[in-house]
């Protein structure tokens, strides 16, 4: 039989390592690709004393190279300090897998982004962010650009799903142009909170969805 991927990619695709969710994760992120609609979630457990990654898990809604990259990147990151893990690139992942088709770069780079975002999430939660700039509406919008709507394959900002963002005394209010019973409302809600709640000066995130549709 002939497959479009090398043996190593296929092995990680068939039997991905470190699959799952860590319920009490110290850092986590869900990232999506506007190009193809793939998504990756990364969960971290980090030793607070030396900031070393003690456990890492991932989930994937994606193609073979997306799953294989999630598997290899979690293998590469395990046991590294967060500063070391941040340096892991798509090239490192691709090399460790014995090469990936270039056309698949956009879906496999997601796992790398997921790892970096999960580390940033950990740093923010643990007060490790070096410069404490006050949060602005622009910064909130920038972060919302990494929340995907799986129905359209677009992020919620470019997909025009954010109708308004307000920031008042640490409370962020976001209006989302989706009914609250939308098939992916729960995912989107969770992802938005995940991105915004971790900002050091944000105390509360209020989300306003449209009324449920019959």
């Amino acid at each position, binding site marked *: 039989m002939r497959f479009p991927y090398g043996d190593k990619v296929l092995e990680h695709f068939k039997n*991905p390592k470190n699959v799952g969710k860590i319920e009490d994760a110290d850092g986590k992120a869900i990232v999506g690709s506007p190009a193809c609609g793939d*998504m990756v979630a990364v969960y971290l457990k980090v030793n607070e004393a030396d900031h070393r990654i003690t456990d890492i898990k991932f989930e*994937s*809604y994606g193609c*073979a190279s997306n*799953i294989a990259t999630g598997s290899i990147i979690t293998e590469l990151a395990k046991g590294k300090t967060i500063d070391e893990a941040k340096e892991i690139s798509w090239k490192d992942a691709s090399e460790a897998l014995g090469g990936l088709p270039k056309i698949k770069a956009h879906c496999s780079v997601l796992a790398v982004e997921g790892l970096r975002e999960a580390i940033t999430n950990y740093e923010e939660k643990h007060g490790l962010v070096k410069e404490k700039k006050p949060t602005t509406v622009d910064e909130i919008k920038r972060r919302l650009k990494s929340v995907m709507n799986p129905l359209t394959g677009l992020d919620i900002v470019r997909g025009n799903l954010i109708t308004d963002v307000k920031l008042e005394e640490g409370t962020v209010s976001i209006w989302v142009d989706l009914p609250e019973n939308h098939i992916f409302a729960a995912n989107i809600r969770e992802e938005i909170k995940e991105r915004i709640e971790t900002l050091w000066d944000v105390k509360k995130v209020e989300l306003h969805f449209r009324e449920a549709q019959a």
Partner: protein
Amino acid sequence: MPEAIYMDNAASTRLDERVLEAMRPYLFESYAVATSEFGHSMGIEAKEALEGARQSLARTLRSSPEEIVLTSGDTESSNLALKGVALALAAKKGRHIVTTKIEDFPVLNSARALERQGFEVTYLPVDGQGLVDLGELERSITEETILVSVQHSNQEIGTVQDIAAIGRLCREKGALFHADATHTYRRTVHDLSSLPVDLMTLSAHTIHGPKGVGALYVRKGTPLGKWMDGGFQEGNLRAGLENIPGAVGFAKAAELVTEEENQRLRSIRDRLIDRLLREVASTTLNGHRDRRVPQNANITFHFVEGESITLHLDMRGIEVSTGSACFSRSLEASHVIMGIGGDHERAHGSIRYSLGRYNTLEQADAVVEAMREVVARLREISPLRKEESR
């Protein structure tokens, strides 16, 4: 490794041995060209074989042999239909063409190419099942409209359009009508003695015939410009050496498809659809439940991605295709799935099972079992709502 289960017959089929046997003499014995009919006896044999094949194809459509233009396949046939009519009527009648958003690429990209040449094209939307609205079609046809091109059935979701009604409408409004019948030829009855169709695209590769052979049915009197220049073959509509073994193979392949076989494919299709919708949670049928070709099932498995499914199936010896963006060279999600429901997630997890002569009910059952396993496994690692999909 068990024998492969090939369910990608809309893309291409295995050649039937009987077709090869019919073609063989024209590869090794009578290999002359038909235009040599006045030159030598081998040329006469070639000419007879070609015209015999043409007659045989014409009979399947209840049309006349001179209405069958042999081509290199459905891509060329549809190019000839659209560009040929454009060439013939642009100066005389107008520059407007009507088609649909879910056509296959030969029609869609011929229309786009004509747009770049200054033609105006209306791309009709379809409903959730893939059907064109006849009222909308009627309103789109103007004085300037030279051609309406609506596929008989869809290449991905199998929905069958009411081409009799569409054809009548075109007649009333004075526009020519082309139907791409690549996936319905011999899978349904085409009686062109009564069906109001002016041009129809046919292909051999979908019915266990040779690749690289097709035909365009051209109703007598239909104005059509020639754009493949060279010799005077095919009623001076399509230049080029006649593919005689191909034509003979095409005719044989057409002859071998029976209503009994179509009924058998229907039962395999229904087994797949019924079992998959019942036994796998969070699934959606793409296309019309009843108005669909006998050989197509297309289902979206939500929360998982199609290329991952096809690769897992391939490892189990099962060959299917998907409308996921990750699967396509262009990285664009299926324009058909987007056209019927408009969302990326539905295209992402869509799988097309297209059947052929060598598929069986047992294979359908094996595919269902494999799907249950593969989808469960991929949902296990998906971050999207897997609780509800188990």
